[in-house]
């Protein structure tokens, strides 16, 4: 079986020369749930953005469904890998929620009627149906997170990539987001500092430290090893 996503020795330097990723290699299979951990500045956001072709590796390659990400394949790749950004304000840029959610399907060539139907359905499933004609600045922080998730779910990706999804959420909204994710059948890759959020949600963990992959294995094992967690800078 081909892996859903394969990172082959991905190395990345930002244009200003900052090294962010150093020969990172791993695979994610269909339906798998993976936590991406690491101290701040370790390169998590950079890695996530390279998975759907927003950033192209300086060396190495990313394969999605066995196909290398390049200019020709990037459109198809982005349909399979749905990325939820660290800050929902970056992702909600249109005047109303419904337009934001329908943006992906419309770009992919769906008709207006179909895009609207699918968007309404996703908003309904996330409990945001009543807010569909509101602008994002009239939503609460928790609603904004869910809305950002909706903009990606509507395109039915095979892999959901979430960057820091539980940041600035209160206990109840965090719980709700986690329950929603637990019910999804897509593969998940969640970058986070919130260990409680991924405990029980993900089965596997990747740990990045200073741009290098420091751990790839079961999440439970990692969480149980206090010394290793400290060495990776995951606990104080």
């Amino acid at each position, binding site marked *: 079986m081909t892996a859903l996503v394969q990172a082959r020795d991905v190395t990345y330097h930002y244009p200003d020369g900052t090294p962010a990723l150093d020969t990172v290699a791993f695979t994610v299979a269909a339906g798998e749930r993976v936590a991406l951990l690491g101290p701040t500045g370790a390169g998590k956001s950079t890695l996530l*953005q390279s998975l*759907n072709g*927003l950033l192209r590796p300086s060396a190495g390659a990313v394969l999605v469904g066995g196909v290398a990400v390049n200019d020709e394949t990037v*459109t198809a790749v*982005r*349909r399979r890998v*749905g*990325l939820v*950004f660290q*800050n929902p*304000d*970056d*992702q*909600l*840029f*249109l*005047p*109303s929620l*419904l*337009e934001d959610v*329908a*943006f*992906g399907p*419309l*770009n*992919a060539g769906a008709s*207006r009627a179909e*895009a*609207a139907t699918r968007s309404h359905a996703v908003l309904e499933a996330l409990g945001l149906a009543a807010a569909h004609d509101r*602008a*994002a*600045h*009239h939503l609460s922080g928790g609603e904004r997170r869910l809305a950002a998730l909706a*903009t*990606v779910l509507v*395109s039915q990706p095979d892999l959901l990539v979430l960057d820091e999804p539980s940041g600035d959420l209160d206990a109840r909204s965090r719980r709700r987001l986690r329950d929603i994710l637990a019910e999804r059948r897509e593969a998940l890759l969640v970058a986070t500092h919130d260990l409680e959020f991924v405990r029980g949600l993900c089965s596997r963990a990747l740990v990045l430290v200073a741009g290098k992959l420091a751990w790839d294995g079961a999440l439970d094992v990692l969480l149980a090893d206090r010394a290793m967690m400290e060495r990776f800078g995951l606990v104080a």
Partner: protein
Amino acid sequence: MSFRHLDRFAQVRSPVTRVPAAGRVFGTVVLALATATLPAGAWVQLGLLAAVSLALLAIAHVPLRVALARLAWPLGLVLLASLALLVVMPGEPLARLGPVAVTAQGADRFAMVMGRAMVALLPAVLLVSTTSFPELLQGLRELRVPVAVATALGLAYRLLYLTVDELERLQRAARSRHAGGGVTRRRHLITAIAAATLGRAFVRAERTHAAMLARGFRGTLPLLHAPVWTYRAVLNVAAVSILVLAVAASARLP
């Protein structure tokens, strides 16, 4: 004038809001153009066009008090701009206000400009009172505003809120650190705040662009809502436009 006006106006359903936004914008432009181009002395036609606008305001359930309140500020600006007309016009002096003389010709121009300005503002008040910003945007796109401008405005709506939030945060932070200070100090502070906001606006543009690309953006914002032009809406817009143009044309008959 605050950008928060963009969202302030409650909408009441009425025959006016049943016309698609593009129709409302079109009607507003026709009314404003007809009024603004009335020749001097066409007082009857000016009165008729005012009546049309007031009737539309009534049909849209905009209370007269609200309409007048919204008229006050822009009208004040027009008044300021046209006061000079009273005195710069050469001609027969009518009266002296202190050291300057009001001329008959000046008073004539002044009355004409103020009359046209006031009546031309009415349809604009009607438009803001019945149309939300997203609707307006949709209307503009249907009326073929350049794609780049429509895209910029579509994104600017959200970005404006984020930018102003950032601006206010920076101002609060700056105030809490430097209370008081001279004019030079304040000027430097405000420059720094404006420049920082500018920098962040560009960073935000980059990140928004990445988020758009991630969802398959290829340069143009897709349009979600198809305009719902009913037979009736077309008739209404056409009828009002023809009426308005007829009134305007009658002012130019020999």
